[in-house]
């Protein structure tokens, strides 16, 4: 299935776009989605150890399953305030 990942801040700059679409298998987890994103855009590799993922606007851990209808986003370290 195709998954669209929203990208912000440094992730958006590294990818050169505000989203990236990657192909993963039907029962893929966040961890597998992350590997697919890095394969599509190797420059993103360096921010992954410091980034989190969100699914439908909530933080999720790497073992959570993704779905085609989910809203996925890569969340680099936040710096509001």
């Amino acid at each position: 299935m195709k998954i669209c990942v929203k990208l912000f801040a440094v992730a958006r700059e590294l990818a050169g776009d505000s989203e990236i679409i990657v192909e993963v298998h039907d029962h893929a987890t966040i961890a597998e989605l992350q590997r697919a994103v890095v394969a599509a855009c190797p420059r993103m590799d360096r921010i992954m150890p410091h980034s989190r993922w969100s699914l439908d606007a909530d933080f999720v851990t790497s073992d959570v399953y993704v779905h085609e209808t989910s809203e996925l986003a890569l969340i680099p370290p936040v710096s509001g305030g």
Partner: protein
Amino acid sequence: MIELTKRPIEVADLLARATRPESGAVVLFLGTTREFTNGRRTVALEYEAYEKMAEKKLIELEIETRRRWPLVECLVVHRLGRVPIAEASVAIVVSTTHRTDAFAAGQWLIDTIKCDVPIWKQEYLSDGTTEWIHPNPIEGKIS
């Protein structure tokens, strides 16, 4: 009340809204844009948010703050877009019947916002370069 805004924060309005007959203490926290950091001069900051999630997280934080402390009012406003030096990028106003709760709630809110709300700032430096600020790298969240 939580708000993301592209306009300057109207601090006096927030204070007026939080000062109520039942409140005996009003605490205001402003995060302001600093010119010098580690000897380098910043000319402006630009804030970006995953707005849908930032609003959701801020609402959750207001609910959690009200669960932990007996608040009369709880107001959080965060600016987005370009913010000049020496302006407020975030304002938190909490009012309570007694001051101890207001200080504690305000401190917890700003600390938690800085960790868990998807907002990012980019510094525009006087030498023409830009930098994303990552003060609190999160280790080990994704294995």
